[in-house]
């Protein structure tokens, strides 16, 4: 069902956890769908220095969360805002069709976190 890359990120998720002094936090999804993703950011000089996530959800939800943190780190917030759910899925060599809809929200969570950072810092 899942690609090797998905299984790799699912079994060894990168950047799990919280950032105590995060300056941006975003959350998407809801419990009734069975997927909640929360992203914590540490932005310095417009650059994402650190990202962490916490996710309640299926294998795809956890793998996309992990992947989006890897993709975001080191990017400017403008670059990070360009990252799409589709790009995350592609970086994982694809997701099963039925997962594209509701478990592929990690980029949305990242964008929420960035918006939260912008709102707090303006």
């Amino acid at each position, binding site marked *: 069902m899942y690609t090797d890359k998905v299984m790799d990120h*699912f*079994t060894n*998720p990168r950047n*799990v956890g*919280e*950032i*105590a002094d*995060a300056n941006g*936090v975003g*959350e998407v999804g*809801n*419990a*009734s*769908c*069975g*997927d*909640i*993703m*929360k992203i*914590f950011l540490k932005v310095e000089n417009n650059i994402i220095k650190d990202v962490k996530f*916490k*996710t*309640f*959800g*299926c*294998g*795809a*939800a*956890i793998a996309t969360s992990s992947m989006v943190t890897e993709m975001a780190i080191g990017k400017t917030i403008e670059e990070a805002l360009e990252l799409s759910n589709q790009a995350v899925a592609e970086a994982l060599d694809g997701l099963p069709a*039925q*997962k594209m*809809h*509701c*478990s592929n929200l990690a980029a949305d969570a990242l964008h929420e976190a960035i918006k939260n950072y912008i709102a707090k810092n303006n």
Partner: protein
Amino acid sequence: MKHIYLDYNATSPVRPEVLEVMLPFYKEQFGNPSSVHWAGRQVSGALEKAREQVATLINASPAEIVFVSCGSEGDNMAIKGTLSALKNRGNHIITTSVEHPAVLETCAAMEKDGYDVTYLPVDSHGELDLADLEKAITAKTALISVMWANNETGTLFPIEEIGRIAKKYNIRFHTDAVQAVGKIPVDVQKANVDLLVISGHKIGAPKGVGAIYIRRGTRMTQFMHGGHQERNRRAGTQNVAGIAGLGKACELAGAELDSYSRRVRTLRDRLEDGIFSQVPEIKLNGTPFRDRRLPNTLNVSFAYIEGESLLLNLDMFGVAASSGSACTSGSLEPSHVMGAMCVEVTLAHSSTRFSLGPETTAEEIDRVLDVLPATVQRLRDMSPLYNCGRTAEGCETCETVRRL
């Protein structure tokens, strides 16, 4: 890595004794049972033997057994065949809200065709209130369809009492006994059922074969039209090998029922007690009265984590179980059974079923108890719902989640 299969309610391996009985029908004994020549004669006896074996297990006569292709077909046939034959009797069906989709979706299709369906509620243990059933009966009720045992929780329904009610009101009674047959005693006479459905692959026979018990004299419209097979009750060349296998599996199940259920119950209790003593913040789904549950089934929700991710983590240790999470049901909603029991939605997504079988060992159970607590903890540590009182954001964002 050693595989530990705890998903017997999903399907079971074909038992070696069953496969042995099947093989000749793929080789020399390949005839069509409808043929008059040697090739047909070689196999027609096998069908009758299997019919007898199935009948014996449920205390029916062989002539009351019709072979079908799966449990779902049996349920479709029972419901559609009854409603069409009893059109003049009424257009009302009573069933429960926790039936298998083979019953629920068939009833939903009947609703589209103008039938009225009452879906009886269950309580938080998944149990039925018989007063609700009696109240639901109307002059137009043509069929009561209640499963013998629920596939997700193992909760048993009071089939004998329902049979008495059905008899009292002279209403036909169908039971989906796919999860019950072979696991607990099933007696169609005692239970006064008119129609009862069995699926081979749940009891050590292969996938692609099942049976329906049709009480003598029960009028049914055909579901599968065509040739004269199964005394005009189900068209299509019979799956001889599968049927022979189903017969053997029923024979074995009958012979081993006592020892099986004692053994599997001991192991299930060991798993249940072990999990409840080692993992905090969990919820049992289904009835806590273990005598009112299948001896092989345990359904638990592990708060804060989603079922599929738990399954996949257990899978890394070779442990196969199943979940009521939306992600494993093929839909966006978690299990309708959890919903009907008013299980809170995240707990429904985290519901996890362990179903044991005749090959399950104590070592396997202990291995699961070894790996499960840490696996649950690992996923909880990853979950934004866990300990969220201490997260940066606080709990306001988790308002859809009620706690245990």
